[in-house]
């Protein structure tokens, strides 16, 4: 008995085998294998991987923001319309008013943030359910877009704007970025282990810690190599990577991030623990709005045009990406990394099935089924 207890104590910091993240990656690998098989290897070609990462970028940016919203116990149905309206305004400001690209990009992000502020205010300070506020927002901002653009498609943006969505980080800078990432990863691991040792905390076996770093590094280098074989790292993908890292940091390392999880997990307990629920909820919606602004810029840049239907139904793809990535719609649970993988799975299905020349209608059906399947797997793994 005593023996058992000491063993338990010893394993206080046992290797956390995060099954959810791994099932996701396994699912992703399975999908990749299936498509590679059916496309005669074309699916994993450098060119296609590059396309895939570019295609996933917009939904991935939205899914990052949506993860925060869902973790906080809310939902945002308006992001598709915000993408449309911010991307549209960016195009109008540049094509009609001749504003320069950096100012236009900033304007789009700020407008997105302001829209988030408006919606967050209704949700947090007026206690209208987010479902309703953002359902309203979905209609309002689509209407604003149609009104402002007069129903026209606005095209031919400056080359500098187009490049945001269509250019690549060339060969050498690409490897430099990858190398820096690997070095940072190693540095963080070494430093983390040193700190734990100083504090007398239990350490994971070094094989596991460094093994993880090794695996991540290899994946990173292989991806960089594959992308460099084509045109380099797509800029939209780089933007996604940066945003994802920033938000991973926010969710795991800041008080704001921790509070969002507490609010979503149990708002009443969070309130009695001195957490300002209203203000934090407002921030969550502002960040979602600003990210939708980023996505709007990416979409307009990629298409070199803004249309009235731009971003239509993106909210559903973003929500699906989060849910596939393990975010619980009940709030309080979810990870940025999962959302990114979720977005990648969704993009892979679109991409792979179009390569196989399967009718577009099948993509909807398969994505829908995968969404249900993902939640079911989540439920049975919890019941174990």
């Amino acid at each position, binding site marked *: 008995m005593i023996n058992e207890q000491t063993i338990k104590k010893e394993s206080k910091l046992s290797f956390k085998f995060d099954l959810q993240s791994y099932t996701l990656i396994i699912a992703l690998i399975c999908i990749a294998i299936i498509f590679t098989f059916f496309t005669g290897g074309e699916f994993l070609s450098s060119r296609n991987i590059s396309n895939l990462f570019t295609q996933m970028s917009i939904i991935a940016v939205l899914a990052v923001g949506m993860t925060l919203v869902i973790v906080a116990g809310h939902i945002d149905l308006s992001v598709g319309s915000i993408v449309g309206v911010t991307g549209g305004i960016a195009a109008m400001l540049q094509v009609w008013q001749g504003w320069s690209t950096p100012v236009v990009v900033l304007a789009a992000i700020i407008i997105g943030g302001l829209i988030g502020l408006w919606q967050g205010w209704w949700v947090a300070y007026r206690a209208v359910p987010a479902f309703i506020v953002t359902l309203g927002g979905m209609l309002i901002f689509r209407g604003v877009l149609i009104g402002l653009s007069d129903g026209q498609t606005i095209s031919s943006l400056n080359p500098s704007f187009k490049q945001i969505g269509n250019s690549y980080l060339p060969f050498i800078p690409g490897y430099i970025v990858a190398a820096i990432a690997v070095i940072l990863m190693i540095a963080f691991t070494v430093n983390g282990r040193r700190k734990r040792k100083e504090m007398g905390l239990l350490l994971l076996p070094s094989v596991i810690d460094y093994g993880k770093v090794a695996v991540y590094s290899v994946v990173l280098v292989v991806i960089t190599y594959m992308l460099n074989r084509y045109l380099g790292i797509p800029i939209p993908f780089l933007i996604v990577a940066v945003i994802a890292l920033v938000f991973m940091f926010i969710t795991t390392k800041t008080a704001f991030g921790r509070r969002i999880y507490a609010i979503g997990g149990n708002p009443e307990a969070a*309130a009695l623990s001195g957490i300002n629920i209203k203000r934090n909820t407002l921030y969550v919606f502002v960040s979602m709005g600003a990210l939708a602004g980023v996505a709007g810029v990416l979409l307009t840049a990629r298409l070199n045009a803004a249309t009235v239907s731009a971003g239509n139904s993106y909210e559903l793809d973003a929500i699906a990406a989060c849910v596939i990535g393990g975010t619980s719609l009940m709030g309080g649970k979810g990870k940025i990394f999962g959302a990114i993988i979720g977005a990648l799975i969704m993009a892979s299905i679109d991409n792979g099935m179009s390569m196989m020349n399967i009718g577009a209608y099948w993509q909807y059906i398969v994505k829908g089924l995968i969404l249900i399947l993902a939640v079911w797997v989540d439920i049975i793994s919890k019941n174990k």
Partner: protein
Amino acid sequence: MTEYVLEMKGITKEFPSVKALDNVTFSVRKGEIHALCGENGAGKSTLMKVLSGVYPAGTYSGKILIKGKEASFKNIKESQDAGVAIIYQELALVGEMTLAENLFLGHDLMRSPVINWNEIYKKSMVALEKVGLDLDPQMKVSELTVGKQQLLEIAKALTKETDILILDEPTAALTESDVAVLIKLLNELRKQGVTCIYISHKLGEIMELADSVTILRDGQTISTNSIEYLTEEKIITMMVGRELTELFPYEVHEISDENVLHVENYTSYNKSGKKVVSNINFNVKKGEIVGFSGLMGAGRSELFISLFGGMPGKKEGTVKLNNKTVTIKSPADAIKEGFAYVSEDRKRYGLVLGMDIAKNTTLIALNKVMKLNVISQALEVRAAEEITTKMKLKAPNLDIEVGKLSGGNQQKVVLSKWIMNNPKLLILDEPTRGIDVGAKYEIYKIMNELVQQGVGIVLISSELPEVLGMSDRILVMCEGEITGEFTREEATQEKVMMCATGGEKRD
């Protein structure tokens, strides 16, 4: 042979990591009230889940005989059909439905293509009368008090052919008067030949009510005895496997003259402008345990939630914390002033159940584990380890979800969370509700340690022995006012109850 209505023989149930039940034997005679005792985690709930088919036959080994016939239930429905009805601690009623609808939910009467409401209402009246509820069956359940909801659950069980009625912690959330009603009803039902299995931590009730007692410890049957051979002390000793010298480890300690909290002419209103507490005057000194006694609804929790800034509405009067007049508008303000409030409902107000232990403990004092506004995982784990060790938390590791812990351990996590912030004033609202004897004892010990460090403690409790046993001074509330104050030496159950029921006021 047939004198036993239920026999469970050699029941063993294993989970991947633990043996929850190890060759348990449990026999209940017809028409008796049989108490099942044991600390949290002793296997009581698991045993009842085996009996009720929550764990289907085949997932455990051993035999269940009901009225001498072997039973193997595949699901809850089958056990219900065989006459086993369980009423859980967390009631399973639909608040927005009427009493009648709840009573006959799932009953054959509700399954006919056209529901005969008149018949249902008629039968509901009979069923309600059986448990002493004189209510309109078309009332909504949400309008009932918890005590009456409990009686409704029993009425619901009795609408079916129930041979064995299992009550899991039925009185955990009840007021003393509701408990008395329940005990009277159970005595009545015993006369009518209903067999009852009664699971409770409250040994006083068991002594009063039970015919025999079975004690489980660490998944094993320790003994089954007729009540005549037992005393509370004997039961406790068998439950914890060691002798507890005393129930309440009160220690004489030094109380400073300095006030931590001083409240003058405090009146608080709720959102709709109704007075919740009025004209409250009291103080709490450094290192003092002040007990707050009273019936449920006397306004004790409301007083402190209001002082803590957790209740919207107008407030009047002066509040001084550490001799400084403060205006507390939100819990955040209160926490800044060194105020801590451990709520009576830990699952609802105390914990984020889906979060792990470490993160729950640092929720308030998060800045203590941050460097340059960044959370340091190493600092966080160390702080959580330190505090939970001090609280004697029993958990395999700190990254498991709090929702998976037992009640006593959950309460220790709540305490860890507040104590990590080094409070000067700690409000404990029903800190030992639904917690087993061993964990209770540990919580009292923690209280002793804290007062020795100079923390002022307010102990709100509906259990009189607890208030009398642990407090230096006792205040009694009734209908939103303080109606009595006693020193530890003066206080008796009778005097306190007199003030709590407003008896003295009406003289």
